[in-house]
């Protein structure tokens, strides 16, 4: 082929490209980016936040709902009643229909929770329902849960992603085409590319949802996400961008950047069962040696909030202990000397580059620790390996990860959890808090637990990972904070600027 022919081919291709511009997007539909494709859409089979991000509050809902401010309120149950904190009676909202047209009845609620309790179904949160002794259907709209013992978390658990209500007849398609009562119906899942939801015309909340159609598009590479936003191919990125990418959008007048709170606590975990971290003096020294504001600046460009313990700012019992053990390298050196490490020691920090912020936080921390004589080598391992070696087998010295679950202080009461923190005192406090339904009493126990954690320093709590979302100007109604791992789009509306 000659040069001229080659040019002709290329220019023909370019003309074909230029001829057709992007299709005009008619409102009100929204294209949202998601970083990770859900491993199935069944919330009763996977704890994956990628699944909750699509399904929870969009396709399926619970008896009670955590709202955008983190407050628990009535939802599919219009109210509930308990006289003794043992028997909870829920009164279902009437006229709520599943996407298949059938009305939600009390028998569905009974079925859903009995199925969750059945070990055969492999529900990831089966433990949360262990307190349930009996579920009694009083009539079509009234159902009573009889608990074996008082459980302060019962309502919280009923509001969680594993507690969504679905119709019994659709149980076999939960994974690929879920049905619920939510504002959107599942329409299509093009594996590897997108999930499409459409408006539920019969939604039980009048006037909602405001969008006709929502498309979740899976784009993993953050650079590609940035390009897609700028090129107008997606309208919003709710979870996919890191602090390093958001900066650019803050300067761009075409976009709104949301920086909010989450329940995601980023921690430097220490293996409490391994030397030298079995010594509380060493653990405290680590806390004093780390300059948390520096870490936040280096890893998150200063976005997020510094933590002092493992309760996030969205929790009603949160106490600000972020300055309880401030940066103090000389004190750290003294504590290390007392513990028998006047010249410091060597250690390995295992992080997974799947979560870039952990690697960046690690780099700052390594630098901090070097100043007190602790030489840390960073070892990057793949996520599946991290889960197997660090999380499951506790084969590690140090690691950094975000704990996204709300109310996860409970992990410190589990001596087998990968922290390997074993404190009888803490376990006792936690047990009491589980049995106390009186708010003031419970708050008091939570304050005690938080102070004990600071004292024992089983981990270094670094910062709360901020919610970082970018949307085109004109997209309204997105949640600012994320008290639950949901992307509730029911109240989102938008008027494309043009």
């Amino acid at each position, binding site marked *: 082929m000659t040069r001229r022919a080659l040019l002709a081919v290329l220019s023909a291709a370019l003309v074909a490209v230029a001829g057709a511009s992007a299709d005009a997007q008619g409102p009100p539909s929204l294209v949202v980016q998601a970083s990770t494709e859900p491993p199935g859409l069944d919330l009763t089979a996977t704890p994956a936040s990628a699944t909750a991000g699509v399904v929870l509050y969009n396709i399926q809902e619970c008896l009670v709902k955590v709202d955008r401010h983190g407050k628990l309120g009535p939802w599919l149950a219009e109210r509930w009643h308990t006289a003794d904190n043992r028997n909870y009676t829920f009164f279902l909202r009437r006229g709520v229909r599943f996407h298949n047209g059938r009305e939600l009845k009390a028998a569905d609620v009974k079925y859903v929770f009995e199925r969750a309790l059945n070990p055969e179904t492999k529900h990831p949160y089966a433990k949360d329902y262990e307190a349930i002794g009996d579920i009694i259907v009083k009539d079509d709209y009234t159902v009573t849960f009889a608990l074996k013992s008082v459980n302060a978390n019962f309502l919280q658990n009923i509001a969680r992603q594993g507690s969504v209500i679905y119709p019994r007849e659709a149980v076999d398609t939960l994974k690929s085409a879920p049905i619920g009562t939510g504002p959107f119906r599942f329409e299509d899942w093009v594996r590897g590319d997108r999930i499409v939801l459409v408006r539920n015309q019969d939604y039980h909340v009048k006037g909602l949802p405001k969008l006709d159609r929502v498309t979740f598009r899976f784009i993993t*590479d953050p650079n590609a996400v940035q390009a897609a936003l700028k090129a107008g191919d997606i309208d919003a990125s709710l979870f996919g961008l890191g602090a390093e990418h958001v900066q650019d959008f803050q300067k761009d007048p075409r976009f709104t950047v949301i920086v909010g709170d989450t329940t995601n606590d980023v921690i430097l975990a220490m293996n409490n069962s391994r030397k030298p971290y079995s010594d509380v003096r060493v653990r405290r020294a680590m806390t004093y040696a780390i300059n948390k504001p520096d870490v936040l600046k280096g890893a998150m460009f200063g976005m997020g909030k510094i933590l002092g313990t493992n309760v996030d700012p969205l929790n009603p019992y949160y106490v600000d202990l972020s300055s309880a053990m401030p940066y103090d390298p000389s004190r750290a050196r003294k504590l290390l000397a007392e513990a028998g490490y006047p010249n410091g020691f060597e250690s390995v920090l295992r992080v997974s580059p799947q979560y870039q912020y952990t690697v960046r936080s690690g780099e700052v921390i390594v630098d901090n620790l070097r100043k007190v004589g602790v030489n840390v080598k960073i070892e990057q391992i793949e996520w599946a390996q991290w889960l197997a070696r660090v999380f499951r087998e506790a084969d590690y010295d140090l690691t950094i990860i975000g704990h996204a679950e709300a109310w996860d202080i409970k992990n410190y009461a589990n001596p087998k959890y990968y922290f390997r923190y074993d404190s009888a005192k803490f376990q006792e406090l936690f047990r009491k808090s589980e049995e106390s339904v009186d708010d003031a009493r419970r708050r008091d126990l939570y304050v005690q637990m938080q102070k004990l954690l600071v004292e024992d320093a089983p981990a270094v709590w670094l910062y709360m990972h901020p919610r970082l979302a970018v949307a085109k100007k004109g997209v309204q109604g997105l949640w600012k904070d994320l008290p639950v791992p949901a992307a509730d789009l029911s109240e989102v509306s938008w008027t494309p600027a043009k």
Partner: protein
Amino acid sequence: MRRYVARRVAALAVTLLFVSALVFVVVRVLPGDPVAVIMGTEGGREAGDRLRRAMGLDRPLPLQYVTWVAGALRGDLGRSIQYDVPVGALILSRLPVTLPLTLLAAAFMVLGALPLGLYAATRHRRAGDYAAMIVSQIGISVPQFWSGLLLILLFSVRLGWVRSGGFDGWSAGVGPALRSLLLPAIALGFFQAAVLVRATRSAVLDVMREDYVRTARAKGVSEPRVLARHTLRNALIPIVTVAGIQLGQLVAGSIVLESVFALPGLGRLALGAITARDLPVVQGVALFVASVIVLVNFAVDLAYGLLDPRIRYE
């Protein structure tokens, strides 16, 4: 010829068996299992153990392998853990993206590299040659994901001619589908073309030094005819060899570019499956890609016979 084909088919079977065993062992020897990924940091340990048993992952490794091979022989590659659909169907559903992408990139590669390589050879050690070599050097040096991003920045963010990524499927029309594949195919083909330019140039240069080329010129044959009939045809054997190897590399390159352009192709399927430890999918894709590469090599070998009638397969 028949014996030759039979030998190749036998070699294919052995290769596939070897690849499958290798992939099987490697993905299982790696720490991390699908259950750990599914359960993440939140699922309970007991729930995980129950799931592991239900998926048959607690059985001995050789038994799992035999079960899988037996299934594969019947055409059943198992079910995806992540998607809960048959692996075979999943692979087939990704082909409409990866196949055209690879073919388009291969077309860019050949159409770009052959003329440029030929041109460079005819301008040996002159400005045109150096220019062509500089271009190909750049092509080899620039990582594909980066050139992909640059193309996105220019053509979709700045100019807005094509979208930045994604694929709506062929049902949305041939034009839009080709437009979605154009940039990734260019990014993919450009790098491979750069390699092929160098191979073409040196192959053509070698042949141009042959006596019969001098003879042809001495006879007064026109230069284009010398190039096309006497030089290029004889130079094609090393070029076809390199191009054949590169076809395999195009499949590998598509893994990276499908991520950059958010295309639901085979490469992204494989990448996601590895991350999620979706073992049946990883095995299925590896087996499929290995088969394709073996078949391409087979086709290349047959092409030798067409290009040079002296080559016989016995």
